[in-house]
């Protein structure tokens, strides 16, 4: 025997309740299917309800004269040979309440800009029609008070990209180590070869990498990847921003070739015509900071390269020579920034020592491939 609850049905098109006129059965009575069990009065008419089950009346849920809402229990039956099932609850979805926006007049686009900049519109004086806050008002308001006096330069997509990469680079643990070079040999040889110092420097760097391959590497989660070929990225300053075009297989090129390639890539970078091959894929980055007079610096890494090496300005400096005397000699400072996850100071120092030794040795420089 299972209990079945029969609820007051909706007897006609949206009625809300029915009033019991009289019961035709009593608790404990056995009833047949469709046997009249109750007379109910609704707003429209009086209706006799036939039993929906064959079984025993277990409970009558209202008395004559009571109003029973549609859906409320009317009669509980004990029905032979049935298993009661569970009714499904309807799932209600609720719409989250919306936040009230302020009462400052501003177009949707201006509101979003303010939100993006973290500007509270209520603090902004609107200069638009009717005191409406304009885009300019918001831009102005997003700086400090002192900056009210400044000019805002729009950020180009390229600069945005560079900025992102710099942020990325700055998050890598990196250290810069410096070495001063007696550049007499370097100056002499480059003059002989009729090139600028940079291609000679890069040729010497490639020779150094051959003995210290860890300079030409990259950190990955699984392993340190040491590249076999040197693709040297060289920093080029253009109107649109800093580019690092790549000299592919720099180690296979002679000094003259390097010189020509550097010129070609620099021109292409400035013209905005670098091909994808030329624009990416460096394994080590080189910056000729001396070209704008910088003595030394802390160049940022160019991820994923483990090393950025900068060549400072070559100019006369007072050096202490072998004999202990102070002389005016051509000199420059090399600044080598390394990814401390890939190299440590000693390894970088050893490599740098070899590089400097090479650069200070005119004969060795002359042996570099032309």
């Amino acid at each position, binding site marked *: 025997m299972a209990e079945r609850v029969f609820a007051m*049905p*909706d*007897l006609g098109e949206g009625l809300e309740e029915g009033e019991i006129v009289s019961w035709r059965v009593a608790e404990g009575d056995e009833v047949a299917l*469709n046997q009249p069990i109750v007379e109910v009065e609704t707003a429209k008419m009086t209706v006799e309800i036939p039993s929906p089950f064959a079984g025993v009346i277990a409970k009558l849920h209202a008395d004559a004269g009571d109003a029973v809402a549609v859906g409320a229990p009317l009669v509980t039956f004990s029905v032979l040979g049935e298993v009661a099932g569970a009714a499904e609850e309807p799932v209600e979805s609720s719409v989250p309440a919306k936040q009230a926006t302020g009462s400052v007049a501003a177009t949707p686009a201006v509101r979003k800009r303010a939100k993006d900049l973290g500007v509270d519109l209520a603090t902004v004086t609107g200069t638009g029609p009717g005191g409406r806050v304009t885009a300019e008002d918001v831009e102005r308001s997003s700086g400090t008070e002192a900056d009210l006096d400044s000019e805002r330069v729009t950020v180009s997509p390229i600069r945005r990209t560079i900025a992102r990469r710099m942020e990325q680079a700055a998050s890598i643990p990196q250290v810069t180590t410096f070495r001063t070079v007696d550049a007499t040999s370097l100056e002499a040889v480059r003059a002989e070869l009729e090139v600028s110092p940079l291609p000679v420097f890069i040729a010497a760097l490639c020779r150094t990498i051959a003995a210290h391959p860890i300079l030409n590497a990259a950190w990955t989660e699984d392993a340190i990847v040491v590249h076999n070929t040197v693709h040297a990225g060289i920093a080029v300053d253009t109107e649109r921003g800093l580019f690092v075009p790549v000299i592919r297989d720099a180690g296979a090129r002679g000094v003259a070739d390097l010189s020509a390639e550097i010129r070609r890539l620099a021109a292409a970078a400035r013209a905005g015509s670098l091909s994808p091959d030329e624009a990416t894929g460096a394994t080590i980055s080189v910056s000729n900071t001396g070209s704008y007079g910088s003595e030394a610096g802390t160049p940022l890494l160019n991820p994923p390269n483990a090393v950025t090496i900068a060549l400072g300005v070559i100019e006369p400096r007072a050096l202490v020579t072998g004999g202990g005397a102070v002389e005016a000699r051509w000199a420059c400072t090399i600044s080598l920034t390394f990814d401390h996850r890939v190299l440590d100071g000693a390894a970088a120092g050893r490599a740098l020592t070899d590089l400097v030794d090479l650069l200070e040795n005119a004969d060795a420089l002359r042996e570099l491939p032309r």
Partner: protein
Amino acid sequence: MDAPAHWAGTEPVRILQPDGTAVGDPDVGLTPEQLRELLRHMIRARRLDRECMALQRQGELTVYPPFEGQEAAQVGSAFALGAEDWAFPTFRELAAALVRGVDPVQYLWYHRGTWHGGPYDPRATRFGPICVPVATQICHAVGVAMGLQKDGSDACALAYFGDGSASEGDFHEGANMAAVFRVPAILFCQNNGWAISVPTGLQTAGEIWKRAEGLGFPGVRVDGNDVLAVYRVTMDALEHARSGGGPTLIEALTYRMGPHTTADDASRYRDEHEVERWRAFDPIDRYRTWLVAAGHADDDFVRGCDEDAAGWVAEVRAGITATEAPPVEWMFDWTFAEPPSVLARQREEALGG
């Protein structure tokens, strides 16, 4: 003998008197087996009709429009239709639907609020979906008749409608088009005396069957409670249509013994004692009487029909009470052949995606 007011006027075609005696030729071309089949259909139909009233009172159907009293009009006409013929109901033609082989549980989905129109396939059953905007289905039937004509088919389309429907513009438009294009359509009016609370006398000043003459095609009045007469008149109309003669308007006089629907309190506009008087014209009583007297059936057979009906109805009840609400997707899945993206997004939203 007293008869319902709307039966006054032209004498209808009649074969069986209300008391079961034959006044016309009861040989309408049916075999004894078929004659017994007519009774079985009518008994089942009435039994189901009464069960549906109970089901509504038990909350299993939302609103139900009973047809008690109209069994002969529906069974007799539906029985005459061939396998290729079409029928278009209003909302009260459950008996006709049964004869045409529509599954009763599927048909009753409409009244359970499970799905509009019932889920049966109108093309497969050749029975239109339940149609509540009265008379609009007449135009659909006429369209089908036009299509059948264009295909050179023998088949016909029959539209059921009531005395109230005959006042609608669509009745006139459909009938006129049927006549002008001379299509194989049968316009079958069950004049049951009432359109909710409005008696036929307030619905029209004339006799409905006569309108056909004005539109240029034949009309006939038949005793709708005489299943043999209804059968014969429908057969005649079908033959007329199949031979290229065009449409026929049949007005079958009958009586709506129950309320308009379960939401209607008929006692507010008619006298229930009067209704009981028209039991004298009951279609099942008279036919059973004749069938037994003519030796085509005996009491055992009749009892058998009652038992068969009881068992069958219990199955329908079980089918209906077990019918659950359809999945929410159904609301979206058939609006178009391919849902446009805007609708597809709404569907996702509705399904909680």
